[in-house]
């Protein structure tokens, strides 16, 4: 039953009658902190199985959006609808963070938040074990099913560590890992909860070029091999442009553009938003953006042209397991 539903759900919207092509939908989500409006009527629809990037200048409200989706913040207005594979609709606004996690949304943090005094493997085991139900009494008595659960969590944690390529670091303390490895470990911890939707908050921040490249591949594999939809916040435009199916742009809490990477790059409102930003980093990002744009159009006018990428992806959608 599950595979069937899954395949049906994975197929992108064609007839419109297909069950839940949209995994996540926000409508009119508004979040205020005193006088500051951090999210301003954000409408966003995310297709099942896609990689959607959210970009925007510093303070645009990207992290606030993640926090609203995962229950860390309570938006004053709006609705957040999540449709799990199993069917049904879940309203996420105002849910407790751990309930959101159990529904199949996992996240990483912009400022890495690992359990530093635990080993890398233990970090992941904690995540695996949130899906277990063994009670304290059977653990204390050492009953067989409790031991089995412990072995299962060990095995599963090892699997996940292998998947993200950290199997050689499992016994290191999380705090002693390199920055790039810590980011990877955060992803591993999120994946260990077997999410349907993974929220990555600037996973490439502070990583070196090789790590960035590995990360790009990891995100692709999470998407294709595990069939997990990915919502990605990222400042690194090259990464966003190469990995994302679609891009949404936030500025001052408002969604100012949405579309394929190509479309968004050309959008005047987006360029304006980035040019308007005074920040140096942002200026660089703009330079990146413009350079990318120029290079692409000079070399091969069709390469990752907006509409083609969209088509390519919708085909991918069906091939995905």
């Amino acid at each position, binding site marked *: 039953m599950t595979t069937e539903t899954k395949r049906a759900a994975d197929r992108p919207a064609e007839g419109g009658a297909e069950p839940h092509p949209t995994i996540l939908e926000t409508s009119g989500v508004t979040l205020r902190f005193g006088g500051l409006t951090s999210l301003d009527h954000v409408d966003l629809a995310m297709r099942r199985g896609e990689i959607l990037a959210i970009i925007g200048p510093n303070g645009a409200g990207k992290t606030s959006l993640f926090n609203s989706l995962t229950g860390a913040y309570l938006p004053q207005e709006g609705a957040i609808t999540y449709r799990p594979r199993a069917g049904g609709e879940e309203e996420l606004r105002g849910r407790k963070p*751990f309930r959101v996690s159990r529904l199949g949304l996992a996240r990483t943090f912009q400022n890495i938040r690992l359990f530093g005094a635990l080993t890398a493997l233990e970090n992941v085991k904690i995540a695996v074990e949130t*899906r277990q139900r*063994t009670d*304290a009494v059977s653990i204390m*008595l050492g009953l067989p099913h409790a031991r089995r659960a412990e072995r299962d969590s060990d095995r599963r944690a090892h699997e996940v560590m292998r998947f993200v390529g950290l199997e050689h670091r499992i016994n290191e303390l999380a705090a002693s890992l390199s920055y790039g490895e810590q980011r990877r470990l955060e992803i591993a911890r999120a994946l260990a909860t077997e999410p349907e939707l993974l929220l990555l908050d600037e996973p490439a921040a502070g990583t070196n070029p090789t790590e960035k490249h590995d990360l790009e591949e990891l995100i692709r594999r999470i998407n294709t091999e595990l069939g997990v939809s990915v919502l990605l916040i990222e400042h690194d435009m090259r990464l966003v442009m190469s990995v994302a199916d679609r891009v949404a742009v936030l500025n001052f809490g408002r969604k100012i553009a949405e579309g394929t990477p190509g479309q968004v790059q050309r959008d005047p409102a987006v360029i304006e938003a980035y040019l308007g930003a005074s920040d140096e980093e942002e200026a660089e990002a703009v330079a990146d953006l413009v350079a990318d744009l120029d290079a692409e159009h000079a070399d091969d006018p069709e390469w990752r042209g907006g509409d083609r990428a969209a088509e390519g992806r919708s085909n991918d959608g069906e091939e995905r397991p």
Partner: protein
Amino acid sequence: MTATDNTPTTGAAGPIGSKRAAEAARLRRTAWYANPRFKRLAALMGVALVGAQVTGEQGTNRDIFHAMRENMTGPGLWLWVGACLLIWVVREFLRAPVANAWSTARRAGTGPAERARTVWRRDPRLRMLALTALLVFLIVLPFLVSRHWQQVLVDQIAIYVLLAIGLNVVVGWAGMLDLGFIAFFAIGAYSAAFWTGSLPVAPPFELNNFAVIPIAVITCLVAGVLLGAPTLRLRGDYLAIVTLGFHEIVYLMAKNWVEFTGGTRGASVDRFSIDLGFFSYQWGLDPRPYYWLQLGFIVALLVLFIRLEHSRVGRAWTAIREDEVAAAATGVDTVRFKLLAFAIGASTSGVAGVVYASKLGFINSEFFIVLFSVLVLSYVIFGGMGSIPGVLLGTAILIWLPEFLRDTVPAQDRYMYLGALLVIMMIYRPQGLWPSRRRVRELHMAEEGTATRAMPAAGGRPATTGGDTPS
């Protein structure tokens, strides 16, 4: 002062300037007594004076300066001054050589000592052997000590060890500050009294003391959940006050609800006994049989709790302690796990209460004052929060010390030494006597600021501002 302020700008400007500069230089030169080294000497001399006064003669109301005079002239002062001077000299002038000697000694010790340590770590059989030896030693311990120390072992050490093991779950593992722990101890003790028919109010049916234990566990579990469910969402300091309040309620009930509890007059309680038909035994006045019983309880609880520590529950507690926001985002039901820790701690306390009442054969409300909550907490912290061997050792040492001092120092001074030990310990070794490895790492990370999160704001924030701090 104004001269100092002006010097940099007027430094090289003619004769007036140079005079000013000289003045400034004079002002800037620190007097010898302002040298930090001598400041420390002065502070140590202050400590010596206070120490000599505090540990010396007692005052009398006939001659109010008697004690001060005696202490300022007696040998105690010179002992104190000598000790402080020695500390100062070692600290200021011999620091480098001592440190060198220490490190060479350690390096020299890497040979056999380090090898022994690796063998110890590798070989679980060796550890089992050592634990068995320790257990055998503990079993025969009552034969090796006097009656007085047997009483201390049974009435204090064993009871407080039970309490500390329970409190360690709450404070050490789940990271919640509980100042009302003795309330559950009282509930356990009064459960024992009630169900054995020793209170003014008769129970529906009388039970054996051992049969009361599961009832006390359940009663404390329920009480713990009732208290915890609405309050565990609170941050550490608020929770401490709530538990303190809860303790006060329970204590005042024990004291003032005389028709039920007997109040300060108390009630006598049946002692432990078993009657299996073919075998019956009655615990009497000899402390040793109680000791073995308590040892049994302690070992059983330790086995259960150590399993818990290294399970999903223990890991979830650590996660909550380290970063509650991240734990919740990962799917850990933080409130439930906190409640679990709270309930487990409460029921352990309840068991200790039953054992206590059934040993003493008598309880009254004054056995459950808040001081004991604080004492248990200090044992746990002194030994090392979250570390079972640390908690056991810490409790044993801190109870042993005042008893040991009973014959050495004036009776009313005993707890002062305990306090001084706690102060010194918390300054120089805040992680405790035998800290848990996880806790040491946490402390290190907090001190060096190398915690994995980039922002300093850490775990204990209220849930509403949870989530990522904007950077």
